[in-house]
């Protein structure tokens, strides 16, 4: 093992002089980084941004004290503002308020520490193997055994102990990594718990359970939506033998946090934490709609290439998200889920029962932003 260690310890060159973008990702050598936000801002824009932050601060209150009250009184205002993007400096806090993770944290003092320090996990080696392969181009996660990698390891290990059925699954690292860029380890852990166990929205643990039942369900729902919303493209996919798992499984498994322009990932997450998984369907549909006229002309191989290289205009959040919101899919998703469940029960009753596990942990509560969740779910 000595040689391997020696090789691994040599850093590939995160020389401090290399320039990083606004989010901390090392810019590609060629210079021209199309991160869509690198244009220098005018004074007017900066003033507008400052006004926006002041509005948000008022809405949140000190440390989040006014948030629940504001949300209860003005759910539509909050939703609209979130769709326009949460100011980056407040993102970490607002994400915790939206997800219900704040309440979990407060109700479970010391739990995270116990999980990290005193428990052992069967997934430890698997986690270690993936640590340096999660956002490898981000400055925070680059340094071997540095604070970023250590935090990432701790959060993933803690989760794998917290839910031993799920353990650690590749893909979770990108969720945890994204969260760690905006909050502390313990906050990131509870947000992961809130998502997977369903504090506010439907639990997402099925994305990672054996057989990936929820991935299969989402892909099935997505395939139907494509056919319904874009019949010509849907038929073209069928003709070219394109299955949604070839391009969309990572969209769902990592909620667009993997191999996706980071500024867009953040905007998707703002909405995702507020409105739920629905936005992943909407953004997926919007990407296909935006490139529709091009995609219908492409053969199998070129299609697969196109899915990995959406044009820069398509990944501008201020273009893509408004387009995404034009797809009204809430009701249809519910119907398609029912259809899917019925079909699964019919076909193999024995294997598909694992999905809707009840919350087994008493540490869990559904209070939090419940009021907000129901108010946003009721409007379409």
């Amino acid at each position: 093992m000595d040689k391997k260690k020696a090789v691994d310890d040599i850093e590939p060159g995160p020389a401090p002089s290399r320039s990083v973008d606004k989010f901390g990702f090392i810019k590609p050598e060629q210079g021209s980084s199309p991160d869509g936000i690198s244009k220098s801002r005018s004074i007017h824009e900066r003033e507008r941004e400052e006004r926006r932050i002041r509005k948000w601060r008022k809405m949140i209150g000190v440390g989040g004290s006014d948030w629940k009250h504001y949300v209860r009184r003005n759910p539509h205002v909050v939703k609209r503002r979130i769709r326009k993007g949460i100011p980056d400096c407040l993102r970490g806090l607002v994400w915790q308020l939206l997800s219900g993770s704040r309440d979990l944290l407060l109700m479970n003092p010391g739990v995270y520490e116990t999980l990290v320090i005193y428990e052992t996990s069967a997934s430890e080696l698997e986690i270690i193997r993936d640590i340096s392969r999660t956002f490898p181009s981000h400055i925070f996660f680059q340094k071997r055994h540095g604070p970023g990698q250590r935090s990432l390891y701790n959060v993933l290990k803690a989760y794998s102990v917290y839910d031993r059925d799920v353990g650690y699954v590749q893909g979770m690292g990108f969720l945890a990594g994204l969260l760690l860029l905006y909050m502390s380890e313990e906050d990131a852990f509870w947000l992961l718990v809130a998502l997977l166990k369903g504090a506010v929205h439907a639990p997402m643990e099925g994305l990672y359970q054996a057989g990936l039942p929820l991935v299969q369900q989402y892909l099935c729902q997505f395939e139907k939506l494509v056919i319904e919303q874009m019949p010509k493209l849907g038929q073209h996919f069928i003709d070219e033998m394109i299955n949604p798992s070839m391009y969309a499984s990572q969209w769902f498994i990592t909620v667009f946090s993997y191999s996706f322009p980071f500024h867009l990932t953040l905007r998707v997450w703002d909405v995702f934490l507020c409105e739920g998984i629905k936005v992943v369907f909407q953004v997926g549909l919007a990407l296909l709609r935006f490139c529709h006229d091009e995609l219908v002309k492409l053969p199998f191989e070129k299609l697969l290439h196109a899915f990995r290289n959406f044009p820069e205009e398509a990944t501008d959040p201020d273009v893509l998200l408004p387009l995404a919101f034009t797809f009204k899919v809430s009701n249809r998703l519910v119907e398609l889920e029912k259809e899917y469940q019925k079909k699964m029960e019919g076909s193999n009753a024995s294997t598909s029962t694992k999905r809707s596990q009840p919350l087994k942990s008493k540490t869990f509560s559904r209070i939090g932003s419940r009021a907000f969740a129901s108010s946003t779910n009721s409007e379409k």
Partner: protein
Amino acid sequence: MAANAGNKIRNAKLVLLGDVGTGKSSLVLRFVKGQFVEFQESTIGAAFFSQTLAVNDETVKFEIWDTAGQERYHSLAPMYYRGAAAAIVVYDITNAASFTRAKKWVQELQAQGNPNTIMALAGNKADLLEARQVPAEEAKTYAQENGLFFMETSAKAATNVNDIFHEIAKRLLQGQQAQDTQAGMVLNQRPAERMVNSSSCCS
């Protein structure tokens, strides 16, 4: 490596299988782009690449599916190996457990896959000789017993990477000629054989 103009291009679906962190993506990246990165992002789901390779006066176009290595993603694998003309099962020579896992993949392919699939066993990270846990002889014997061809590769040092794909291409074309003379079949009827219909989740 460019295809000669005018000759026939054969399409061949190829799948890479193997344990987490054995270097499946790195092998593909080396073959397709001639690049190597020390910390390759984990593959989530699967990734598609294509590359053509000229063998004598014929050209094979590989449609490559690079799969996620973790056991939990196992349920997605069949749709990628079904109908594949070739498979590369990858292990890491510095990790004995990854060799065990490679054998499991071979068994699964033998049981579930197409009997005509050309299978290669790649012992990757061959540059890390001092950390070796899997003797080359052991892998070679295993490969012979199971009708695979075997190479130790290094995506990092670019050792045997093109060679393994080249050998697969050669064997595909040989098998093809044999088939041509027998029944006049095509290597990979497209697009129908690319994916088996049951891979679709609904309908």
